């Protein structure tokens, strides 16, 4: 029993120390799925967010020379740990804003039970669920990744324009796959297309031939796959090609993976197209890629540019709001609304000067222009890619 008291005392003094050490520091929470199902994806995302914070501090700091500090929390990709960690960040660490969590389920729970009631602004780099759009969030929830709705809908319209009006859809049974597939289906059918097969599949099975046979029974010759090209999506595509279930293949952004070309060979992929976000004509992405490589990161890792943008936007919004947590959400929409002088990734000093001069700024992110709408969502700009040699080449833009 004594040991337990000692432990508890230790814990409390540790917390007390942590809060006393704060001097001239502005804290933001960095909440990610460190342990749990996306454990492999989370560290590069956190690293790229830290890169943004490092740049802020190297270029004179935030709010008149204060240090911006990121407190890392673990959401474990589930609502239980997400809410627990967010409660600590908001109440104990007293963060001025929250970057994350990574998974949609955590975002919904954290926004509903912590950040919105506490009046803290949240920006997620990878919560893609369409449900996040409809949150009753008083405008305090943002994201730097488009909702699955955008991509699914624009892909559906483009396929119809290309003359494909009968397809079968195979999707991975998680929030990514089902979100995309659902949006695609609704839009495709609403515009006169026919879905001849529609089925979810679980991850990591050895064979999907029975799923594919079932899907092809509807008579469509085009298969739309919403999955990851370095995982189950590859298996599906390979088995569909081998057995000749379908002739044309369309993928979502997860399918635009070099692993597919490497494994299946470009000569077999002449009828394969994939939609994927395309950067605007700014060189934001290249600037970010160079900076991220310089600190030892891999810029091709998934969601790293979104994560960087989320952190940089949070810093810009804090600067603009003058450090007042209650004004961050209004500032967030105004620093990236398509109006004002352009600020590119890493241009912190310039942004601070512009804000100080009272000028309007517009952040052009590494993952796109990121102009927030009323719901805090960003529209995606997507293109259709075809296989050309050993790489993907842009075929046409999606509308």
């Amino acid at each position, binding site marked *: 029993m004594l040991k*337990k008291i000692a432990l508890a005392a*230790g*814990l409390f003094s*540790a*917390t007390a120390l*942590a*809060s006393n050490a704060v001097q001239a520091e502005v804290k933001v929470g960095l909440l990610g799925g*460190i*342990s*749990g*199902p996306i454990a492999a994806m*989370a*560290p590069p995302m*956190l690293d790229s967010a830290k890169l943004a914070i490092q740049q802020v501090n190297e270029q004179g700091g935030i709010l008149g020379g204060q240090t911006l500090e990121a*407190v*890392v*929390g*673990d959401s*474990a*990709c*589930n*609502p*239980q*740990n997400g*809410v*627990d*960690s967010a*409660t*600590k960040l*908001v*109440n*104990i660490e*007293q963060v001025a804003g929250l970057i994350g969590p990574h*998974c*949609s*389920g*955590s975002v*919904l*729970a954290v926004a*509903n*039970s912590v950040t919105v*009631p*506490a*009046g803290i602004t949240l920006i997620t780099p990878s919560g893609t*669920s*369409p*449900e996040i759009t*409809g*949150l*009753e969030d008083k405008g305090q929830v943002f994201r730097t990744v488009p909702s699955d709705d955008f991509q699914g809908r624009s892909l559906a319209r483009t396929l119809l324009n290309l003359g494909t009006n009968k397809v079968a859809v195979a999707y991975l*049974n*998680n*929030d*990514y*796959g*089902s*979100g995309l597939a*659902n949006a695609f289906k609704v839009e495709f059918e609403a515009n006169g297309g026919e879905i001849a097969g529609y089925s*979810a599949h*679980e991850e990591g099975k050895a064979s999907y031939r029975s799923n594919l046979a079932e899907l092809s029974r509807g008579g469509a010759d085009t298969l739309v796959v919403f999955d990851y090209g370095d995982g189950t999506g590859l298996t599906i595509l390979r088995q569909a090609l081998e057995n000749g279930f379908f002739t044309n293949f369309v993928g979502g952004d997860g399918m635009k993976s070099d692993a597919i070309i490497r494994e299946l060979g470009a000569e077999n992929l002449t009828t394969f197209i994939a939609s994927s976000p395309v950067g605007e004509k700014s060189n934001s992405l290249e600037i970010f890629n160079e900076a991220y490589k310089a600190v030892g990161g891999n810029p091709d890792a998934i969601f790293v540019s979104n994560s960087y943008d989320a952190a940089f936007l949070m810093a810009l919004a804090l600067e603009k709001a003058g450090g007042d947590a209650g004004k961050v959400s209004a500032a967030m929409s105004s620093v990236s609304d398509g109006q004002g002088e352009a600020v590119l990734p890493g241009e912190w000093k310039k942004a601070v000067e512009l804000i100080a001069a009272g000028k309007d700024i517009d952040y052009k992110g590494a993952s796109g222009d990121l102009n927030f709408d009323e719901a805090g969502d960003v529209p995606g700009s997507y293109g259709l890619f075809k296989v050309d040699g050993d790489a993907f080449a842009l075929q046409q833009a999606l509308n």
Partner: protein
Amino acid sequence: MELIGLLNYAVYMAIFIGIYSLLALGLNIQWGFSGLFNAGIAGFFAVGAYTSALLTAPESSVHLGGFQLPVVAGWIGAMIAAGAIAWPIGKVCLRFRSDYLAIATIGVAEIIRLVVKSEGWMTGGARGVNKIPRPFGDLSYLYSQLAYLALVLSIVFIVYLAIERQISAPWGRMMRGIRDNEDAATAMGKDIKARRLEAFIFGAAVMGLGGALFAHFNRSITPEAIDPMIATFLIWIMLILGGSGNNRGALLGVAVVWIIWSASEFVTDQLPTEYAIKAKYMRVFIIGLLLQLVLRFRPEGILPEPQGTADRPEVKTFQNQESAAK
């Protein structure tokens, strides 16, 4: 400001401990008093959470519902649904003993999880159910949390009293008798199959109520919440550490494990930043280590099951009769 922050955190912890207490109490009925190794808590948690969510949530294009019943109806519905699901499962699985029952219930929980994920028309699939009403949700942060805490605590208190009463009644003694010596209980003419089913359904209904309270607290429920790690095994650790067969032990176990789990993040945050991410895994390790130590040095848990003491004379008599019979 700091003080209010601490208070907010403490209130949140208490709410969470209250919700998980229901799961641990439910498991205690099944394992602690009846010896049923249920490794499918997440399944009943899910049934309760989703039933209450669908009964009370506003209409939506992605899932069944639009009933918008009062929250209380949702909670009662959650208990009924979890109990109703437990009935066929118990009918089939309770013929298995210990390890086999555990395997079967893990399977059942996975089936429930996959049904929730796949049957989008009913549950919203991966998108889950949102906009679930939260009682007193319109108040400010602290007051809405305090109000919800009061609600959770009173429910836990009522459930605790109900279980205590049931366990010290002849039914409870009979269940412990069946648990400790099935043959003796059969010889005394007890209908073991039916009794076990009763305990299984009773426990599942309490777990379902826990799930419902969780869904309403977060105003949303997604399949990510019914991961077996966080919704099954963590509760086992809590119960074993606190002391199975003792309701106060179950409550204590939940509090100790969750406080260690949550507060240890402050300690690991003191490490240099290059270790900060890795250090998050330390917490998982600490919980595992704790379980190992408890099982090694105090297998009966922090608060062991009371054994025929003065306040339970009837238990003593029962045991005396039993030893006399030998």
